[in-house]
């Protein structure tokens, strides 16, 4: 199987969306679901091979000199993530098929989300760190586009920008960390790095590179104190929240940590950073989830809590902790994806997702209610769901963690108590209790909206009941990959009566207690929050950005004042003074030009140029000035011809002609006389600057002949133009072959200039029609 094709085909489909959407209209969403479904089955077929440890490594040279390759690696961990991405992707596309059908920019939505899916697959399948970074950035970018999808809402734009700034900052830090890691280990390939863990840990650069990489992982996975972008990201349409911001993208940081655990893990720094950030995030998320009103915000905070839990587990790093991490990863994706879909379905059918306006809806939407409760039981960690197994293993891992076991166990129980309470709060608030009057009359959500939650909750149920058949084959290879050694493990639903089970019972009991006293509890907590947790991280961050912007604005205004003549003046003065100083300092004043070799016609041309230049300075007519400038250009072209630069001469003549025409066109629209705009003093000042600059250019040209720091590259071009470039016109060979990339860049610059002129002249602000 070619891994690059799996990634490539998604991107390919993404770029076809404009055409597909135009042809197929509303049903396109359901059709897109076929691709992830197909990829899911293809990937699932690889599972037996991966279990037998036949991993796939494929590589295509990209920048071989920099050790950057488009290389891909499929082992247990990447397979598990790829299955999550494609599996969830299938359900999300079906869901979007209905959810997005009336959105005006539907095609754009599918383009963004396919772009994301391709990038996310690339991220988890990449073997090269730089390739991984590339896909990592594409996921941040597509997340930005999707959060700001309802771009006419200022909140959505602000949330999108905030998410991009935070994850983008982390991504750049991570790139620096990757480069350090690559330098230390001598390779960017994960498969090589996995052999070199000891070298990396022993290196002096270990601490900076770990901190930089953690900045990337923590921002992406919304760890405290970067967590606040995730609740903001709820501005995105719900399919996006279900897909990117709970099941897949936010887990990219977890993936990276798990991937690097064998290379970087096991040190005090690693355990401390991950443990601290994870534990904080876990508690903060669970706590704030309890006091939210918006269904999606509740889910966002529980997601943060879950991400913290995952980071903490990677940090503990024991075999059991990694097992718990992998199982909980699956558990969380299943239940959180489902819950987001339900929240969106309720929002779509009822018209609100504010828990204060919802209640007592189970008789009208029984299917949704059953699916929700199945999912919530898994979230609360009740048997026989996979969530129960997940929580048991987590407790087990924490109880058996070295040194700090007691604290970790207490923290985990505390977070889980809130989780249980939130789960019941969510289910009860929506489906039981008093009936409220939401904006639309409640009815069962449409079938496409329910397929996802039903499939996910049933999967969670079956994976809990048959762990040996369904869960173990998926989980073991992934744990294997993180531990970098084979694992023998039995995952069971029932562990017997022991300390861990006791903790589970305590969690559920206390969670239920908290739920029953929800009214006084939430009231007290909200009051408490208002008094003591007044710091809004999102606001703080916004203020930081704003003050940074105003700071740079003040600085920029000094240099970028917008007066073209002052820019020119500054450039002329600085460059000529620097060069004058250099000439004075190193080369002395002697010019060894041989004046006797200069032919008489060249002197004539020079006199012509000088006369024309003087004339252009002193004439009062614009037209005359322009024509005299043209004369200078043509005369210079003549000099080029004399010295054999025919190409340059032709180009110069054509450019001079066109510029002349252009100037005439512009002058045509100006008054024909030239009034004295400048005062005599400023004219004298400009004259001095011009003379200094002109003198510098002359001196530079005269000296250039004698300054040879390294052998000129022209010899190489002369020698190789015909043999390697198949051309006798060296100028042309340089332009289109040796320096082709430069030419391409210049062409792009020209196009941007053309677009600039076009938008300045043609795009005038339209008058509003209402007026």
């Amino acid at each position, binding site marked *: 199987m070619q891994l690059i094709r799996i990634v490539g085909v998604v991107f390919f489909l993404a770029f076809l969306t404009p055409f597909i959407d135009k042809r197929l209209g509303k049903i396109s969403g359901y059709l897109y679901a076929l691709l992830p479904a197909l990829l899911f089955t293809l990937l699932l077929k690889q599972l037996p091979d991966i279990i037998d440890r036949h991993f796939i490594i494929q590589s295509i*040279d990209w920048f071989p000199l920099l050790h950057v390759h488009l290389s891909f690696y499929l082992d247990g961990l990447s397979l598990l993530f790829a299955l999550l991405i494609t599996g969830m992707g299938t359900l999300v596309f079906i869901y979007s098929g209905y959810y997005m059908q009336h959105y005006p920019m539907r095609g754009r939505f599918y383009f963004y989300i396919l772009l994301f899916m391709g990038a996310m697959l690339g991220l988890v399948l990449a073997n090269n760190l730089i390739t991984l970074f590339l896909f990592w950035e594409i996921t941040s970018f597509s997340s930005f586009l999707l959060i700001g999808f309802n771009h006419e809402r200022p909140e959505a734009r602000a949330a999108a920008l905030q998410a991009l700034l935070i994850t983008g900052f982390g991504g750049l830090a991570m790139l620096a960390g990757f480069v350090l890691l690559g330098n230390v280990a001598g390779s960017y390939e994960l498969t090589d790095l996995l052999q070199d863990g000891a070298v990396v840990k022993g290196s002096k650069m270990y601490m900076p590179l770990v901190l930089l990489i953690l900045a990337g992982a923590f921002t992406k996975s919304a760890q405290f104190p970067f967590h606040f972008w995730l609740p903001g990201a709820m501005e995105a349409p719900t399919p996006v929240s279900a897909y990117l911001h709970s099941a897949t993208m936010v887990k990219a940081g977890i993936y990276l940590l798990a991937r690097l655990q064998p290379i970087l893990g096991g040190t005090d720094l690693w355990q401390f950073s991950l443990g601290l950030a994870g534990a904080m995030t876990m508690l903060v998320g669970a706590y704030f989830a309890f006091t939210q009103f918006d269904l999606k915000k509740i889910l966002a905070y529980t997601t943060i809590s879950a991400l913290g839990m995952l980071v903490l587990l990677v940090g503990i790093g024991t075999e059991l902790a990694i097992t718990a991490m992998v199982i909980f990863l699956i558990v969380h994706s299943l239940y959180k994806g489902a819950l987001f879909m339900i929240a969106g379905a309720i929002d779509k059918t009822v018209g609100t997702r504010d828990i204060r306006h919802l209640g007592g809806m189970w008789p009208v939407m029984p299917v949704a209610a059953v699916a929700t409760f199945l999912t919530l039981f898994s979230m609360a960690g009740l048997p026989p769901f996979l969530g129960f197994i997940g929580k048991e293993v987590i407790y087990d891992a924490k109880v058996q963690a070295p040194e700090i076991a007691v604290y970790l166990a207490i923290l985990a129980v505390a977070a889980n108590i809130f989780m249980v309470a939130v789960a019941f709060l969510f289910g009860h608030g929506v489906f039981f209790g008093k009936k409220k009057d939401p904006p639309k009359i409640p009815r069962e959500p449409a079938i496409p909206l329910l397929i996802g939650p039903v499939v996910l909750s049933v999967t969670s149920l079956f994976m809990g009941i048959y762990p040996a058949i369904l869960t173990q084959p998926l989980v073991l290879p992934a744990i294997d990959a993180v531990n970098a050694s084979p694992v023998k493990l039995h995952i069971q639903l029932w562990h017997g009566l022991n300390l861990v089970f006791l903790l589970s019972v305590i969690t559920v009991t206390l969670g239920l207690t908290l739920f029953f006293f929800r009214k006084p509890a939430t009231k007290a907590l909200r009051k408490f929050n208002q008094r003591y947790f007044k710091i809004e991280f999102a606001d703080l961050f916004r203020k930081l950005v704003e003050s940074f912007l105003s700071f740079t604005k003040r600085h920029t205004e000094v240099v970028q004042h917008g007066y073209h003549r002052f820019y020119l003046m500054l450039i002329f003065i600085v460059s000529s003074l620097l060069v004058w100083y250099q000439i004075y300092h190193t080369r002395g004043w002697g010019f060894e030009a041989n004046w006797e070799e200069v032919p008489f016609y060249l002197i004539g041309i020079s006199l012509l140029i000088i006369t024309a230049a003087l004339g252009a300075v002193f004439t009062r007519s614009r037209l005359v000035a322009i024509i005299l400038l043209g004369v200078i250009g043509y005369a210079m072209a003549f000099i080029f011809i004399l010295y054999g630069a*025919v*190409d340059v001469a*032709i*180009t110069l003549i*054509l*450019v001079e*002609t*066109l510029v002349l*025409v*252009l100037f005439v*066109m*512009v002058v045509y*629209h100006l008054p024909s006389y030239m009034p004295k705009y400048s005062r005599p003093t400023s004219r004298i000042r400009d004259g001095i600057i011009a003379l200094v600059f002109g003198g510098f250019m002359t001196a530079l040209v005269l000296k250039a002949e004698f300054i040879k720091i390294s052998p000129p590259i022209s010899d190489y071009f002369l020698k190789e133009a015909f043999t*390697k*470039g*198949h*051309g*006798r*016109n060296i*100028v*042309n*060979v340089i*332009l*289109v*072959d040796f320096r*082709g*990339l430069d*030419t*391409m860049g210049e*062409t*792009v610059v*020209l*196009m941007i*200039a*053309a*677009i600039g*002129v*076009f938008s300045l*002249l*043609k795009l005038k602000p339209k008058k509003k029609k209402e007026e």
Partner: protein
Amino acid sequence: MSNPYSNIFRIAATKLRPLLFILSLIVLYRGHQQPGGGFIGGLMAASAYILYALAFNSAEARRKLPLSTSALLGTGLAVILVSGLLSVLAGEPFMTGMWTTLHLPFGQELHLGTPVLFDAGVYLAVIGVLLTIMFDIIDIE
């Protein structure tokens, strides 16, 4: 605006436009061996149309173009990219020059390579850039 231009100018512009255009193609083709090339060719072709636009008006000149000016821009860059990517398809790094010789009847040979295609892209892009800018300025009333 009434017609401020002489008929001589108009006739000259009409006759010169195809001549300059053909000349620009020749310059483009010979550019790799002798003075010329895509940039110079593009300037020439563009000046043919600018001349025409000056004699008549920009709308008339636009009508004589096979593509819109913005389409010329896009096509030019696309041709440049394709010429660079052809070598990628052959498994070489981006923008590796690839050459082939076509044998034409009467013993003629045509030596073609991706750099020539690249030059053609530059040619189109230069025409597009110049005409976009010049036509817009001519349009200012």
